[in-house]
């Protein structure tokens, strides 16, 4: 409260902490509500003659997924090669360069594939989602939808959520494969292990569970990206500057959420 300027710093500090905690909780609550609402429209929309349009989902999948293939492919290949280079360098200490496949396979499939995909999609699509919805809100396009009897969550949000939840795991799987391929190429040059032998070892090392771990995690990343992107867009106020802020906030939140979720997921999955 602002009545007394003499209020001491400690009180003000706790006041601020309290307020931001409440604001944070409120935002988490909104994420929950948004998710529940999306599920509601997905399930009950058709019965209310408000179905989620498949065309819109495909259009989003194209935008979120297919158009991201080149950049994600490049990044995945670079990461795969990097893992091989670093792996060989560090294993040289023990004279165990031959064991590099273990490290590369595990880290690419369980960690780097999903993570790099999540971060790139967050940067490309999470921010775009916020910018698009924010602009629509400012131009009263969201109101226009509402007045036309078209629910914005059903019309705009559900297709985006479905698209990211489907496409991020698909892209993550692609980046695992490409990352491993790039690693194999480097190992082939550096150590003379043939591609076939590399593949053989990868298959022997990895279990289905490892791949599922990576793919499952990416689906979660996809959900987070869409929810955070959408919510930041919906909460835009204050014109073009607001859109800019929301976009930045959305990317920062998406990436933080992805990294923290990744850690928690790894912790729980390896217990």
């Amino acid at each position: 409260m602002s009545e007394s300027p003499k209020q001491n710093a400690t009180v003000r500090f706790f006041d601020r902490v309290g307020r931001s905690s409440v604001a944070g909780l409120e935002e988490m609550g909104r994420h929950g509500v948004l998710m529940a609402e999306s599920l509601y429209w997905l399930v009950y929309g058709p019965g209310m003659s408000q179905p989620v349009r498949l065309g819109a989902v495909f259009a989003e999948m194209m935008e979120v997924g297919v158009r991201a293939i080149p950049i994600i492919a490049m990044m995945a290949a670079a990461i795969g090669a990097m893992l091989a280079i670093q792996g060989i360098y560090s294993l040289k200490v023990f004279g165990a360069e031959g064991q590099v496949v273990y490290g590369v396979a595990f880290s690419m499939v369980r960690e780097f594939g999903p993570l790099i995909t999540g971060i790139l999609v967050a940067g490309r699509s999470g921010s775009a989602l916020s910018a698009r919805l924010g602009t629509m809100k400012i131009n009263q396009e969201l109101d226009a939808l509402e007045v036309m009897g078209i629910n914005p969550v059903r019309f705009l949000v559900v297709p985006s959520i479905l698209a990211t939840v489907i496409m991020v795991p698909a892209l993550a799987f692609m980046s695992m494969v490409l990352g491993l391929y790039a690693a194999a190429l480097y190992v082939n040059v550096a150590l003379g292990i043939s591609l076939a032998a590399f593949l053989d070892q990868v298959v022997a090392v990895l279990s289905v569970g490892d791949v599922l771990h990576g793919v499952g995690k990416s689906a979660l990343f996809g959900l987070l990206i869409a929810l955070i992107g959408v919510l930041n867009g919906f909460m835009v106020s204050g014109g073009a500057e607001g859109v800019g802020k929301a976009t930045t906030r959305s990317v920062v939140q998406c990436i933080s959420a992805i990294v923290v979720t990744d850690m928690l997921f790894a912790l729980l999955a390896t217990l």
Partner: protein
Amino acid sequence: MNRTSAPPVVIEVNDLVTHYGPRQILNGVSVDIVEGEIMVIMGGSGSGKSTLLRHLMALQRPTSGTIRILGQDVWRLPAKKLFELRKKLGVTFQGGALFSSMTVGENIMLPLFEHTKLDRKTMEIMARMKLEVVDLAGFEDLMPSELSGGMIKRAAVARAVVMDPRILFFDEPSAGLDPVVSSQLDDLILRLRDAMGMTICVVTHELESVFKIADRVTVLDRGDILFVGTVQELRDHPGERIQNLLNRRSEEAEIDADEYLRRLTGDKEEAEGMPR
């Protein structure tokens, strides 16, 4: 307009109170809009007229009070009924609010596409018909960004009427348009009422359009209704504030020394009631 036969009331607002955060915007507003009339809501900026419009379109939940549209209490309706009701409303927003990712034609077809099972050819024909009504024939394949301000507004009108709504809302139709274009838009509003028998509710502060199109006028001032009546009654009204509004005299703020002092010292609690 001849109202001797007392046409039915289509929108009934009763004792509407709303807040933005702690700030009270509307202080118990009651107003009726009857079928087939053009009701203009006017008032200075900050008078709460845009807020009232949002409530009339059922976009915002009031703090208290009721809004009945076509006989139905909008905030007591189940979601599905509210959707049905909304199909009978059309709105032209201030900036048009056309979807920038779709062509003009797709914008106009969107309500048909979402609410009807017509085939695409029929929808295209209906969209073209509405474009004819607003004098934009042949523009259906352009993107909204390729249109001028006046054209965007007219395209937005075409979208608003594509479902043949019972009630049509306009938010500041003349905002940002030159006098000629805004007068054309006024003609369009009159034509729509006469040709389609719609009830039309316009929010504006342009006096010229008020006198041209209005059957009845509601004047809002700082969240209260100052006047409801016909254009003639408005002209003849003895009230000083109304005459000030009509003659574009700026109002001298009443000087309240205490209030002024409180505002300067920034005592928020007390300055809550300051004029907006």
